């Protein structure tokens, strides 16, 4: 037995009419974000606050060794909640300051990606025609190109600074955001009110700003969140390969990479940054998915 909702296919018009007739205003229960969604936001808020106010937490300096020979690879203790690493640095402190690096790279990279990819996507879908085809083709090539190769080369030759990582990861997220924004814009640009606005001679900028942008925002928010997660993951991978910010500066990725290469490291050193990263990615992806589902009418009926 296939357990799927009953569907009867009607002629388009009549179905909408029937649905409208049956949908008494106000009686449909509004779709709410569930408990887990708020947990995710809570976690994100927590790590954001911790990263912002890291300086006020009275932690040991994250990058300076603690110069006590006994503290090398020390297990968790009251003084060092997560222990110390092979250079006697406080792991909790490195985790907190690492959050700063990961989050800042994620945030700024996303800003670049959304800024460029989002506006190009909307523009492309709005003008259609040759420009659209050309842009889409270029983006398609970038999507096909294994970004990691270019990223590794460029970082090696430019230097592994935070700003380079931000710019490069941001730029390489452009094609992805371009594609989804373009699709979302196309979907709403064909709606009646937009066509009407265009036919009444509204300027392109006005139509984009007044009619299209507000309707693309929900999709854009969701994909902003996904991109954020994607960039943090990529930064983590680079860090793991030792190709992100350089030791002694910590990011979650390079902490995992460093600890996994050190046979004396205890499990906590891997587990702590790995869990932080995993929970953050769960929070981002879940929240993004909920936002997308909530605003995407085409999937709501599933």
């Amino acid at each position, binding site marked *: *037995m*296939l*357990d*799927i*909702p*009953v569907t*009867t*296919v*009607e*002629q388009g*018009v*009549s*179905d909408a*009419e*029937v649905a409208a*007739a*049956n*949908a*008494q205003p106000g*009686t*449909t*229960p509004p779709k709410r974000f569930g408990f887990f969604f708020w947990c995710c936001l809570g976690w994100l808020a927590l790590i954001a606050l911790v990263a912002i106010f890291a300086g006020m937490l009275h932690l040991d300096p994250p990058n300076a060794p603690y110069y006590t020979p006994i503290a090398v690879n020390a297990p968790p203790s009251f003084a060092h909640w997560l222990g110390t690493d092979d250079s006697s640095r406080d792991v909790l402190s490195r985790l907190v300051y690492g959050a700063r690096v990961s989050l800042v790279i994620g945030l700024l990279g996303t800003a670049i990606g959304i800024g460029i990819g989002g506006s190009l996507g909307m523009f492309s879908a709005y003008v259609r025609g040759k420009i659209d085809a050309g842009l889409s083709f270029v983006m398609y090539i970038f999507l096909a190109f294994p970004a990691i190769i270019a990223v590794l080369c460029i970082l090696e030759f430019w230097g592994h600074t935070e700003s380079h990582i931000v710019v490069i990861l941001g730029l390489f997220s452009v094609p992805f955001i371009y594609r989804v924004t373009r699709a979302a814009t196309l979907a709403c640009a064909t709606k009646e009110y937009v066509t009407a606005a265009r036919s009444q001679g509204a300027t392109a900028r006005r139509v984009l700003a007044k009619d299209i942008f507000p309707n693309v925002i929900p999709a854009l928010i969701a994909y902003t969140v996904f991109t954020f997660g994607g960039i943090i993951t990529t930064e983590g991978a680079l860090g793991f390969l030792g190709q992100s910010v350089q030791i002694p500066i910590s990011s979650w990725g390079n902490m995992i990479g460093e600890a996994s290469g050190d046979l004396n490291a205890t499990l906590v050193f891997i587990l702590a940054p790995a869990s932080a990263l995993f929970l953050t990615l769960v929070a981002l992806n879940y929240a993004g998915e909920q936002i997308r589902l909530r605003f995407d009418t085409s999937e709501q009926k599933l």
Partner: protein
Amino acid sequence: MSTSAPDTAVAPDAGTERPTSGELLEVTDLRTTIRTPRGPLVAVDGVSLRLKRGETLGIVGESGSGKTVLSRSIMGLLPGRGTMLTGSVRFDGQELVGAPESLLRSIWGPRIAMVFQDPMTSLNPVHRIGRQIAETLRLHLKLSKKLANQSAVTLLAQVGIPSPELRARNYPVELSGGMRQRVMIAIALACGPELLLADEPTTGLDVTIQAQILDLLAEAQRMRHMAMIFVTHDLGIVATRTDQIMVMYAGRAVEFAPTHQLFANVRMPYTEALLHSTPRMGNPSHTRLAAIDGRPPDLVSRPPGCSFAARCPYAQDKCREESPMLVADAAEPDHFYACWYPRGTSTPVHPQGAPSDA
């Protein structure tokens, strides 16, 4: 039309003795409740009907009146979760409501088949049409692949598809709407069903094609002694092609009569309204019957009284308070209607409380 090709390659019923007359289908108080976010929706509300072998019943009603849900409920073709079916459907003496899916599967295809409304969405887009026909033949009649394919070609020829050998290798995208509906009919007819449910089989097609499909169905029915339930929103279509007509409104049967009696003496105001809004033959069928003002009631929270009261020009206070029962006409015992103040000629006889104050 080239549909008169003899039934040679596909004569599944040739060997088996099959009665050509007698009671085939008996539906009693069928009720279908669909779970929706707003609560249970009673899409079919206590419908009863009978059908003899070889006869045709027309089910007519506006869009949303429950025709599709009714025809699928009769077949048992509803998802298990989310819908509840009560009442009884006896098909050739066998109860289908609550029957295990395996029994239903052995009936679907060889004994009851359905032609669906929208030919553009009802064929599998990734299978060749020949295969879609042959599939049932292989499953139910245990034909070999080769024989099933040959029979599929014969069936395509019977439903009037030119160069059927070539067409059998086409995908649905390569066919027009009318052609696809013929393929759909060929699929339904493949195993020689005793009952064919046709759910608005011509609604999406243009008028000339519509007439051809109707003729095709009529001819197939006559040659195979097949009973048919013909669902439509267009009274004009069923006027000449059915033995009985059931008019549905808001999930209920509101008028039920032999075809000639219904047209001679319409009793129910809703039927009357349907008749007035029926496009004349020859008008494009796409003109929707929007002529009846207002909307059908909310089936989740049905107002008390007659469902049609909000739109009925003859409605009185009683209509809004008490629901009229389906009762037999005094003069024509085969003619049933549900209305307190019926149109037409003869005096209504209501079991409880005749309209003395009318």
